Structure formats: C-alpha cells, structure tokens
C-alpha cells in the first residue's frame, strides 16, 4: 500500500513568487494534516481537513497560505506571494477516522515532506 506522497520534494523560488505543494494521503484516510518545520525547529501544525472540510486551520500563518482538498482526496497548499520566512519543510500527514478506532491505535502517517527554499 502506498504511503503519503508529497511533491515536489524540493522547491526553490524567489521572494514574491507563488508555489503550490501537493499531498496525496493514504487511500481511505479521511483526515489530512499539514505541518511545517522551519529552520530545524519544532514541527508546527498548520491545518486539518476531514474529507474536504477544513476542521481546524488555526495554525495557518497568514492569508498568503491557502489550502484546498477538493473532493476529499489529495490536497494542495499554495503560498502566494512567498516570503523568506516561509522557507522550511512542509509535511503532510493522514489518518483514518478516529471515531471508528481506539484512540490508542490511531497514528498519523507522514509524507517525506517538501523542502521549500525562498530566496
């Protein structure tokens, strides 16, 4: 079974440009999360989708970030316009519906991340 897939794996853009990151979750996973790790610091939550609905977007830094999950399958995260401080590794993660399983058994499955460098 395929894991969480993210692309591109690396993106180098100039300040002011637009970048779109894509995440394909594990098939059948209703929950999809975006996280970000900046400059070797902690991994920070950005937002959470349940199917196509945004459940929690409290971690989104500002309105330059736009996440979508049309049809409840793959998700995109667009940064427009990109700023220097947006550089970091963007991780996507997915999990099954927690209401159907014991919390103790539920885990997040992470993708390999997209390394974004804004110059």
């Amino acid at each position, binding site marked *: 079974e395929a894991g969480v897939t993210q692309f591109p794996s690396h993106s180098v853009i100039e300040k002011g440009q637009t970048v779109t990151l894509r995440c394909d979750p594990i098939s059948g996973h209703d*929950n999809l*999360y975006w*996280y970000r790790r900046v400059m070797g610091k*902690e*991994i920070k*939550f950005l937002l*959470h989708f349940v199917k196509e609905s945004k459940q929690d977007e409290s971690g989104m830094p500002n309105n330059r970030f736009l996440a979508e999950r049309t049809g409840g399958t793959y998700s995109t995260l667009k940064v427009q316009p990109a700023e220097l401080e947006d550089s970091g590794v963007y991780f996507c*993660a997915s999990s099954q519906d927690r209401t159907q399983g014991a919390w103790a058994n539920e885990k*997040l499955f992470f*993708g390999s991340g997209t390394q974004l460098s804004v110059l």
Partner: protein
Amino acid sequence: DQQVKQNSPSLSVQEGRISILNCDYTNSMFDYFLWYKKYPAEGPTFLISISSIKDKNEDGRFTVFLNKSAKHLSLHIVPSQPGDSAVYFCAASALSGFSQKLVFGQGTRLTINP
C-alpha cells in the same frame, strides 16, 4: 510560547547502552503523548505513545515513561542499536473535538556509536 520542549538538541550513546531522551510540557490539557522518529529526507514515523492514564508503556526495546506531576516524559531505548540513530520528536495532544493536532518539540538528534 513553546508548550513541548526537548532541551537536548543532541545525544550520543554507545551501541548496546541505554539511550534516554527527555521531554517536558507545560499544557495541563495534554492527555496523549507520542514519540516519532525521523531519518534524513524522510517524514517522521510513529514509534510509541502513552495515554495520560498510564505512567509507562513498553514496546520491545522502547519504553516511554510519563510523570504527570512533573509534566515530563522520557523515552528509553535499550539496548541501543546503530539503526536507532535519527532525530526523535516528542509530541503531545489534547483530545478536543475531532482534531488530532499534535504539538511537537524541537527534536533530539540521537547518534549511536559502535
């Protein structure tokens, strides 16, 4: 304001010995804790977890201890093996609604020396 802290950026341990990674948290609402392991160019992978109703959980060579009064948890790896060399992240969650939002620490780079 960082709610989950891993104060040791790095740790070096000899193969076969015990590795102890520490994590402190400040939010009393956290009731579920996890450890993730991350290799270079890969995403974090789940290692072990513990609910706040327990103080210990063991899985093979890995044991997590939780001290709620001190708001401290630790991960013990024994015996340590070269393949354990990775960055380890402590994470915490509060069960609020449907969100599985995790709050991570900064990570500790563990190096196992032969």
